[in-house]
């Protein structure tokens, strides 16, 4: 449904803001993710550009009120184009002392701080490790503090409904959200609609949430304390129809679109793992599109099933996060040897080992490149934004099916859960990836028609025959194959030939992908380089630096193996190259090794995306040196 919203107009002081960054933080059980999603949604519908960053703990529900249990949702909405969820908070809403403690450092000095005053009792303070009450000890004097008795006001608002206090408190998030809606001139309509649909089967909850939301809004309107509210106008996005999308959603949609574009059925086989599980969940909802999903017994089984599907002539896709990639690595080797199409989605998270399961990181690049025995090249792609996950998923399917190869799609926790506006693609404008499986023999031996499963086309791809095709019966497997016939071969020269051919096939993809794009002048002092999900921070930092007059450009790799053909040229046109990564310097190693450029590195390995300011400062330091 396409909506045009009327922004409510009221007679209060209104300040115009170009963009605003808000974080809602509370206990895992406080519903911050839901409130954040609603705020995002509403802001998107209001025509703002948006970017979000949800951040939640690894525990399902750590003990209430503890630091470990804090869950946060950050949203940046703007009247101009933005690419990141924002470095620094303009407004922070905290539902308890633990949330204050873990989040305050990100609030700008003078920023708005809204606290649920009712949650600052002695035991709450103790759980968060406060010795004195920050609401009273003056430590918050640098902020515009609003102490709102959210819990009690909310209970009052729903009092008539005779809920238990626990049930009543479940609406607190909507009360807080209502207040924010008032503060930033948001319409209640989309959220009211959401509440209506979501709780249609539970009228008292429906009513409670509705009342809570309105009560929060009205509190803003009536309280003396809040005298200003803010307006963030519509962004000048390119004309079109938009929706909000997260990276995981975009991948799921991309896969459905790829099934359509190739004309092939699709199997998504996965095993639950944070932050990739939602792709499985989402696709499991798409049964009406003929999508089949398998929650396999483990990651090995999942990739096995996906490869089995590919062998069957349909699209086989598997997705996981780093630890799961470890388990899939042997089977990836098999797919390389048997030259079957396969898409492997790695939603990267903090490592090594179990690491920081709910946090973002980019440290699986070299694993994707080299994490298998033998010379075992695959294509590696990395989407740059949540919405780009859709396009790159289609790209992954295109390259997998046209080059008969496994393709890695390196997403990350930040892209997976972060949201942005997305120009809705038209189905009839999707790329045509139609696949026709061979039906006829492709050679003659002694005058007899025969089928050679390793006879290659111009792209060096072998034919993708679907079992069931009469006359083309053949066998494949993981032992080295004889060129052309695909028979087992231990012949030394053949092995070398095949190793080189497999490598060449992947290298050839460079002819079939876009060149590396430079944002800014084509040459200069400094090139800021990144890959995948850091796009927004690096681009924004670059733009700021450019505005400050620095000779700096930005290039983001979305194709990592092979790299775009112009990569070496681009790198060499800048005096300095700074590779910024959320890892210890993995792309940097590759660029140095391949192009012998003395690329500098800026690494951040904190389970968090880059702040724009971090990049800016690092770049300035280099530019000034």
């Amino acid at each position, binding site marked *: 449904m*396409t*909506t*045009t919203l009327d922004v409510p107009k009221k007679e209060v002081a209104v300040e115009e803001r170009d963009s605003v960054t808000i974080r809602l933080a509370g206990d895992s059980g406080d519903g911050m993710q839901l409130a954040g999603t609603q705020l995002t949604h509403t802001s*998107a*519908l*209001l*025509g703002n550009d948006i970017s979000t960053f949800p951040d939640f703990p690894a525990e399902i529900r750590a003990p209430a009120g503890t630091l470990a249990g804090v869950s946060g949702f950050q949203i940046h909405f703007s009247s101009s184009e933005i690419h990141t969820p924002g470095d620094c908070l303009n407004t922070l809403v905290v539902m308890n002392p633990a949330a204050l403690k873990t989040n305050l450092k990100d609030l700008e000095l003078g920023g708005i701080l809204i606290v649920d005053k009712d949650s600052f009792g002695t035991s709450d303070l103790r759980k968060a490790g406060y010795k004195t009450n920050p609401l009273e000890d003056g430590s918050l004097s640098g902020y515009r503090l609003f102490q709102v008795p959210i819990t009690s006001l909310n209970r009052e608002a729903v009092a008539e409904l005779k809920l238990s206090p626990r049930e009543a408190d479940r609406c607190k998030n909507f009360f807080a959200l209502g207040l924010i809606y008032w503060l930033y001139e948001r319409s209640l309509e989309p959220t009211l609609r959401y509440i209506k649909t979501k709780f249609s089967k539970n009228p008292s909850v429906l009513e409670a949430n509705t009342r809570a939301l309105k009560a929060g809004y009205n509190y803003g309107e009536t309280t003396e304390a809040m005298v200003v509210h803010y307006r963030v106008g519509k*962004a*000048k*996005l390119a*004309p*079109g*129809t938009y*929706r909000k*999308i997260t990276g995981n959603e975009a991948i799921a949609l991309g896969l*459905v*679109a790829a099934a359509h574009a190739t004309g092939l059925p699709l*199997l998504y*086989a996965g095993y639950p793992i944070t932050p990739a599980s939602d792709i499985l969940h989402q696709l499991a909802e*798409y*049964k*009406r*599109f003929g999508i*089949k999903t*398998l929650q*396999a*017994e483990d990651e*090995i*089984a999942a*990739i*096995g*099933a*996906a*490869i*089995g*599907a590919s*062998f*069957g*002539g349909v699209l086989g896709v598997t997705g996981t996060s780093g630890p799961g990639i470890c388990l899939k690595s*042997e*089977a990836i*080797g*098999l797919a390389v040897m*048997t030259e079957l199409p396969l898409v492997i989605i790695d939603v990267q998270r903090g490592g090594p080992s179990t690491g920081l399961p709910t946090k973002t990181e980019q440290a699986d690049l070299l694993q994707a490149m080299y994490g298998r025995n033998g010379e075992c090249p695959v294509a590696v792609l990395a989407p740059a934004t949540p919405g780009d996950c859709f396009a790159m998923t289609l790209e992954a399917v295109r390259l997998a099916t046209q080059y008969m190869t496994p393709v890695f799609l390196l997403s990350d926790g930040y892209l997976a859960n972060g949201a942005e506006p997305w120009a*809705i693609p*038209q189905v009839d404008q999707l790329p045509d990836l139609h696949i026709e499986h061979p039906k006829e023999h492709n050679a003659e031996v002694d005058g007899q*028609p025969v089928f050679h499963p390793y006879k290659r086309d111009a792209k060096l791809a072998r034919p993708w025959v*679907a*079992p*069931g*095709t*009469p*006359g*083309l*019966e053949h*066998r*494949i*497997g*993981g032992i080295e194959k004889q060129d052309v016939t695909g028979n*087992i071969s231990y012949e030394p020269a053949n092995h070398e030939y095949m190793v080189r051919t497999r490598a060449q096939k992947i290298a050839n993809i460079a002819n079939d992908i876009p060149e590396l794009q430079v944002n800014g002048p084509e040459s200069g002092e400094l090139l800021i380089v990144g890959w995948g999900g850091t796009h927004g921070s690096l681009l924004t930092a670059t733009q700021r630096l450019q505005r400050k007059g620095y000779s700096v450009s930005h290039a983001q790799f979305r194709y990592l193996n092979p790299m775009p053909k112009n990569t070496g040229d681009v790198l060499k046109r800048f005096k300095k190259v700074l590779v910024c990564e959320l890892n210890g310097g993995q792309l940097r190693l590759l660029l140095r090794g391949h192009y012998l450029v003395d690329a500098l590195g800026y690494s951040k390995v904190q389970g968090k995306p880059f702040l724009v300011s971090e990049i800016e400062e690092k770049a300035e330091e280099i530019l000034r040196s």
Partner: protein
Amino acid sequence: MTTKSLPLTPKDLASDQEVRWCPGCGDYSILAQMKKALASLDFPREKMVFISGIGCSSRFPYYMNTYGFHTIHGRAPTFATGLKMMRPDLQVWVITGDGDGLSIGGNHLLHAMRRNTDLKIVLFNNEIYGLTKGQYSPTSRIGTRSKSTPTGSIEGPLRPLSIAIASEATFVARTTDVDITHLVTVLQRAAHHKGSAFVEIYQNCVVFNDGVFEYATNKSVKNDNLCYLEHGRPLKFGKDRNKGIRLHGLTPEVVNLGSGISDDDLLIHDEKAEDPTLAFMLSRMVRVPGDEMSFPEVMGVLRAVDHPVHHELVQQQIDEQIKKRGPGDLQALLTGDETWTVT
């Protein structure tokens, strides 16, 4: 190109690849009987797929003129599961060994059977690792001297059939490499079963474990050591079919027929029993060489029940969703529930 016309002959099922097992290996017979069994099916060879792991046994697909996939060690059931889900029209065979299927790959077998995936799983049990040149396997008897157990293995063996039954397999059977008529029949029955069919074949590894199934294959003694199961019939065995299995509470016992004990006293085989306890009990019977009154080992079909099949349930949910909510509209999906327009 056109289909090889039916019926097929076993020769139609032979690929052009040279068979490379050791001379005398039991695998040769299994290959030959498989071709016979499949030729009898009235099913086109291009719709047959053989998927294997790694091991001597797992070379099998190369020798069949069908579609084939020689995958990686222990994982054959996973490839087969994905294939069968997406291509229900194919008849999918899984070929595995005691190491491939029960050591590294035990979990996948288990889950394929639990799901009642429509696979025909044939486990070549030679109680040894052949391809890696003779280490003991999870089915090797205690005390097996092998390269990795020079002073004898200390681990109790698994019983493949017990595992299959506990994994909820709907068809469970056993046969031997050299009992060629029985082998053909069992393979045919597996082929006809809808759901997970698990077949254990005693297979002689002439190089690393020669003669370990002598008691079950040597014509002069095997009838005393094996009990061939027939649905609805009493469990009888012995060269002269003069011995039987009787139930004593839950405990089976071997009895000599005659002198007061007749067929009517014997346990009646029921492969269709929904409760798998009987099948499990049969899977526990082990011949102790030299012990006349030890149990015979059962051959044939222990269990064959009809349960809903995985790929059909998958399709059913799709059909139901389409019926309920209409077929998927991609544009609507991409568009989503809430949009806004910038002009």
